[in-house]
């Protein structure tokens, strides 16, 4: 594990702001945010089902041709061969040999056409499932799923995001869902810093203070019922749970065998943390693996990064399966776009959003399936085109969330998946 100076320190005060900020927006009466603590009863059953999501974020844009949609023998195909997978008729790049034997729980989508091919705007699109709109601060995927899958009383974080490389690092925003659903954002060390109890305060003192606050709050609540107070009370109630969750980030608590299975790379270690988190009930974990932006030496870059992705993703799927968690955990591999079929003079591939790929594994997914098709050179989608909204609708549907559900922003209904989005039903169970 590597430890670096932490520039984005999450101190105790920030932590309180993070968990408590929603208390200040609990009125739900303004046009910019909704009541972060008003969870509808219809979702209780869903929450009880314990569904989780791990997003493997391939920042910078991985090449679909070197992963899930190879074009061997074509001028655009590059030098890598296609290998047969465990699913008859489905081939993927030879750079993904471990995943080739584990497609039984994975669906490949080869037909994303998201049109936007600059990093910043494409990130916004794929992180929110829709293009930005003036005046509406849309939440990103993690925030929506933290709200839909997380329990308001949960003692573990709802949403953890790990992004240790600096290039393309974006925290994202919970938008109108409010700060309650912002991520616990880890940028340097894998262990959240400054959530430990101060040494000057004993655990007993800390517990007594919390109980005193709880008692006073209950007395106050008998005479003053108000959403903002409920939010404030709930936020403080989570603090001890969050402080006690630091062990989840400590992979030294895993056996050496398990740690070795995930391997020595930082991405592998973070995937192991992700498994620990979802096992403990964290509903959404994002692990960013940057940086795939291979304008030069695309093939060497993918030899490095695909080796990491192939090993870590397959180990993660195996581990989740062995623990009985894969049925309830959706693992997504996705970036902001793919890479050009054409190969430039530096043996690189550039940004490309017209015909690219992602994968969905586990919860709600019909494994061993491929959706969509690109032309023989990979320049265009010729079958089953999907946009970002369709992908979001598919993700929600896989998790049992009605993709037509709406949040009320003031008097305006905002569907959680973009207007006219359609789930890709053939890859759903």
């Amino acid at each position, binding site marked *: 594990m590597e430890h670096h100076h932490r520039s984005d320190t999450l101190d105790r005060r920030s932590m309180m702001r993070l968990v408590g900020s929603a208390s200040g927006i609990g009125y739900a009466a303004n046009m910019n945010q909704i009541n972060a603590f008003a969870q509808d009863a219809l979702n209780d059953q869903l929450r009880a089902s314990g569904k989780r999501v791990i997003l493997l974020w391939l920042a*910078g844009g991985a090449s679909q041709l070197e992963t899930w949609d190879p074009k061997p023998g074509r001028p655009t195909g590059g030098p890598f061969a296609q290998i047969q997978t465990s699913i008859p008729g489905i081939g993927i790049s030879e750079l993904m040999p471990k995943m080739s034997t584990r497609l039984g729980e994975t669906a490949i989508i080869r037909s994303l056409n998201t049109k936007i091919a600059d990093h910043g705007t494409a990130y916004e699109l794929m992180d929110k499932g829709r293009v930005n709109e003036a005046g509406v601060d849309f939440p990103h995927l993690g925030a929506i799923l933290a709200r839909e899958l997380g329990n308001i009383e949960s003692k573990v974080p709802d949403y953890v995001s790990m992004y240790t490389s600096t290039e393309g690092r974006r925290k994202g925003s919970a938008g109108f869902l409010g700060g309650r659903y912002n991520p616990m954002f880890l940028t340097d060390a894998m262990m959240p810093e400054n959530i430990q109890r101060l040494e000057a305060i004993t655990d007993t003192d800390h517990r007594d203070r919390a109980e005193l606050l709880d008692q006073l709050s209950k007395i106050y609540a008998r005479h003053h019922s108000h959403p903002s107070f409920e939010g404030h009370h709930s936020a403080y109630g989570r603090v001890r749970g969050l402080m006690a969750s630091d062990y989840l980030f400590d992979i030294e608590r895993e056996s050496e065998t398990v740690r070795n299975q995930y391997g020595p*790379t930082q991405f592998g270690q973070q995937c192991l943390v992700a498994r620990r988190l979802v096992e403990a009930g964290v509903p959404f974990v994002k692990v960013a693996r940057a940086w795939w932006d291979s304008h*030069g030496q695309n093939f*060497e870059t993918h030899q490095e990064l695909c080796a990491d992705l192939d090993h870590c993703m397959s180990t993660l799927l195996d581990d989740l399966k062995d623990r009985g968690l894969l049925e309830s955990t959706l693992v997504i591999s996705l970036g902001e776009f793919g890479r050009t079929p054409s190969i430039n*003079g530096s043996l*690189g591939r550039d940004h490309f959003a017209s015909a690219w790929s992602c994968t969905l594994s586990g919860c709600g997914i019909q494994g061993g399936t491929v959706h969509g098709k690109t032309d023989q050179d990979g320049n265009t989608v010729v079958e089953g085109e999907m946009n970002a909204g369709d992908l979001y609708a598919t993700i929600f549907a896989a998790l049992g969330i009605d993709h037509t559900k709406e949040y009320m922003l003031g008097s305006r209904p905002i569907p959680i998946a973009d207007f006219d989005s359609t789930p890709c039903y053939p890859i759903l169970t």
Partner: protein
Amino acid sequence: MNFSTLKVTNEWPGQEIIFCLAVDPNRQRLWFGCSDASVYYLPLNEEKAERVNLSGDGHSSYVTGAVLAGQKLITSGYDKKLVWWDTESGQQIKTITAHDSWIRRIALTPDHRVISVGDDMQCRVWDAENGENLGSFTDHEKMTPHHYPSMLYALDLSSDGSCIATGDRVGHIAIWNAQTLEKTAELETPEMYTWDPKQRRHSIGGIRSLAFSPDKTKLAVGGMGKVGNIDHLDGPSRIEVFDINSGERIQMMENSKNKGLVEQMQWSPDGKQLLSVGGNHKGFISVHEVETGEQSHIVEHSGHIHAFSTDFENQVMITAAHQRLARWSFQIEDPQPQETKSLTHGDEETDNS
């Protein structure tokens, strides 16, 4: 030598990336290997020469190496294969799977043994006549210090065939006795490997070319210097020259104006100059005075140059580049003190100074 008159005399544009070439001793016939997995023949002696695709299954991936062994052409590829061709008939003769990963380079010894290096990090020796494996050896780690697959890019033979040099992604060089296949020396060029631990968390670079001096006392090592943004081939081209006996680096030539990789090098017959080709999205041909380290000549090219062959006697050079094959002529003049001359390919006629 004065390369100021280096200019293109013929060009053969195409859609493919040309990675390697082999020219017959008479400079009349050329074979080259491409990204379309094909090996082509080009009769240089014909006024309007057109390429001919050799017959056979051949390769299934990029063709990265080509050597002539008498009437046979031997090619290598990222498909892990060595393929033998009959140069008279253009027919494929023999194919063997020679490595467990991409073959990056091959070379032919004077006693007709083929030496190959691949990303399985092995250097292997083959009988050029029958393809029999005569030995395998390595001094190169399979994984980088950062736990990612390494690559064995570079290979060169001394002109008498007695020494072999191999160079890898992280900057390690091993020198071998070509008869006993025992390691005789090792060198390090860590500047050729850029690992970005923070911003992008992967690497770029590696030793891409090696060249023994004519008297085999020196070894030139080519690649790219440290890179800030590893998304691109944005680093300075870099050549280091070592005294093999002492292991001491005696010259370093880094040029931020000519960015990218030094893909291949060749010493002038007198051992005073070093020709190199490479580039980023564009290409360059560069001449360095080894004693001073000065770059005495540079020609920019429209495409990244992957390989070249220079005939000093006839003053002809052939370059294999991104979507372009070119023949160049140059004149060898008495060495004169001069300023570095730089011209872009296409402007040659206007620069005859």
